[in-house]
């Protein structure tokens, strides 16, 4: 090990500041066993080690190798025209930091990214050097998420994939025109090509491992990507259709949505926002969940008539209110897939319902105890007893007003109530 110097702390601060806007933090999707003489293992389920003041989890050492960059992307804090402190880690510094943090159980592994220096291939080579050292010299079995530099060539992606658990290339802007406007040096080809390389590698290794048990694994936790929300004119429909087509590819595991944070507010190509569009970002994640875990098709969530997600209610409730003809669902008889579509019932509670109703007919009190959000669900179900006014007996507009009203009431104190006035 190399001696640690205090100046590494300064570098660490600078490069963490530069890396923090990438939202991905997952450490899940694959397992690595501990090996004799090696360090660590990978659990398979994600482990978050801490949570920052903004409520985001810290799972991996999310860091940049350098924040020097030759590009000038308008949405990026590290663009070359920004006047900010720049720093570069040496390979050995970063390797030591990762291992020492890991041994203290601060982190699950490394999430390494970099600004582009000289050219994409040169940068990618440096990134590969770090992960190769970690895996080959230190026999590190923790999680490694490696950012692929847009425009990197195939052989480097191939090398990187042998060491990384997950790789990612960020689309950032789903409309190519808008991307070119904000990031003149980038285009969609430079993003989708490396994605394609990763996918090929994954498929090839899968095939080889079918034949030979010990054939090397390639990016076993698949790839992810990220889109910035609210910096350009894309609708939620544009964004979600892009996600849906990405999820259609065999190796794409996660799409992240990053509410645009005005880091370069002086740039007139970008909108002036008072605060990042956090509600919109949250709705997009909910829609993403509907596609991944709730068997929803993307065209059920957004379409030409409703290109933007409803900010007031969550996308599942919004869908139910648009389709009252599918309700009420009979909790004691309906198919699992139909129960899953009821607002207020999640995957776990839907499964609990299906296994429990074989013993006895379920009542609303049972549902409540199982953790179903009856406040929402009551308008969309019937069970063993007389039901509350459901969405068909009343109207979707009425149910909507009931469900959104209460929020307002909580925030505002009762003004209608008579107050006692004492004369002075």
């Amino acid at each position, binding site marked *: 090990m190399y001696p640690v110097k205090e100046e590494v702390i300064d570098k*660490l601060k600078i490069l963490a500041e530069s890396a*923090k806007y990438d939202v991905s933090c997952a450490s899940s999707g694959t397992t690595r066993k501990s090996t004799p003489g090696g360090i660590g293992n990978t659990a398979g389920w994600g482990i978050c080690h801490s949570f920052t003041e*903004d409520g*985001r*989890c810290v799972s991996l050492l999310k860091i940049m190798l350098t924040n020097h960059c030759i590009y000038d992307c308008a949405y990026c804090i590290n663009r070359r025209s920004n006047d900010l402190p720049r720093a570069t880690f040496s390979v050995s510094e970063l390797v030591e930091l990762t291992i020492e943090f890991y041994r203290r*159980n601060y982190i699950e592994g490394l999430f390494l990214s970099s600004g582009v220096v000289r050219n994409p291939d040169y940068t990618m080579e440096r990134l590969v050097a770090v992960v190769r050292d970690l895996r080959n010299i230190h026999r590190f079995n923790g999680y490694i998420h490696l950012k692929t530099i847009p425009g990197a060539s195939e052989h480097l992606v191939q090398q990187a994939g042998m060491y990384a658990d997950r790789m990612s290339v960020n689309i950032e802007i789903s409309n190519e025109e808008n991307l070119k406007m904000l990031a003149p040096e980038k285009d969609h080809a430079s993003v989708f090509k490396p994605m394609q390389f990763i996918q090929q590698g994954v498929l090839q290794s899968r095939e080889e491992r079918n034949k030979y048990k010990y054939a090397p694994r390639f990016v076993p936790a698949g790839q992810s990507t990220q889109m910035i929300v609210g910096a350009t004119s894309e609708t939620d429909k544009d964004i979600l259709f892009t996600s849906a087509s990405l999820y259609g590819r065999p190796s794409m595991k996660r799409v992240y949505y990053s509410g645009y944070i005005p880091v370069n507010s002086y740039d007139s190509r970008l909108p002036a926002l008072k605060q990042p569009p*956090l509600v919109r970002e949250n709705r997009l994640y909910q829609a993403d969940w509907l596609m991944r875990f709730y068997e929803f098709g993307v065209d059920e969530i957004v379409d030409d008539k409703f290109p933007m997600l409803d900010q007031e209610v969550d996308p599942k409730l919004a869908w139910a209110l648009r389709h009252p003809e599918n309700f009420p669902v009979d909790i004691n008889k309906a198919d699992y897939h139909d129960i899953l579509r009821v607002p207020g019932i999640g995957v776990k509670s839907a499964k609990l319902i299906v296994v429990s109703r074989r*013993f006895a007919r379920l*009542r609303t009190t049972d549902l409540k105890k*199982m953790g179903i959000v009856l406040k929402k669900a009551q308008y969309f179900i019937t069970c063993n007893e007389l039901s509350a006014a459901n969405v068909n007996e009343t109207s979707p507009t009425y149910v909507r007003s009931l469900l959104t009203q209460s929020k307002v009431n909580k925030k505002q104190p009762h003004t209608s109530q008579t107050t006692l006035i004492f004369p002075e």
Partner: protein
Amino acid sequence: MLVFRYDKSFDGLLTAVFDAFNRKSFPEMLIGMNDIEPLFATEIFDVMTDDEKSKRVWSGLKKKLMSVSQNMLAYVWLSEEEGSDMLIFRYVKKVFENEQSVEMNFADDDVLGVRNTAKRVNTEKHRMIEFVRFQKAADNLYFAAISPDTNCLALITSHFRSRFADQQWIIFDTKRSYGFHYNLKTISEVTFENDILFKDGRLDEKLMAEDEKIFQNMWKAYYKSLTIKERINPKLQRQHLPQRYRKYLTELQD
């Protein structure tokens, strides 16, 4: 009202189940050896903990339950929650009284209760895996203090054993005053006479490895830099990282 008195051990509880079935009468209440006898008790039966009896009950359960469900019972015991022993008792009684399996009947209060209590223990187990913070001592031993609500320490040792197989560590539960020490080969229980070596869970600086303070400072600096000011959301942070788990987190100590 029939009351069973036992030694508040898991084996004692299983013995109580055995005795109840043996005498064909079931208690409405369980009390410990030093608990005050309830006024309205009609009979108090003293359970003599017997490993043979408890083993028979446990292996009987093994035949009737999926291993997941049986594990849940052990988790419920570790919850140390008020009334968790009676919950286990009622659950086990239901298991033996019913021909068919009751494990999936979550409309039953006890079945759901066992699941939910076990889930709370499991959640805390995962949280402890997340929030253990090792401090490196000069003799290359890594020390961490925790103080969980439930007695989940024994559940996390296997994780740390396989992850940090090549480093010696101690994880110590300050609330229950015991810990486990991994010596590169085996894990054994340890106790300390006092906490003078690790006041408030922090290793005495004289015992620390030379570079320990530096890495702690680096981690603190890194943690601080990661926050996005525009998104500050203490409520969300509290939800994931409740106040009571914060005292031993290096990054939140000053």
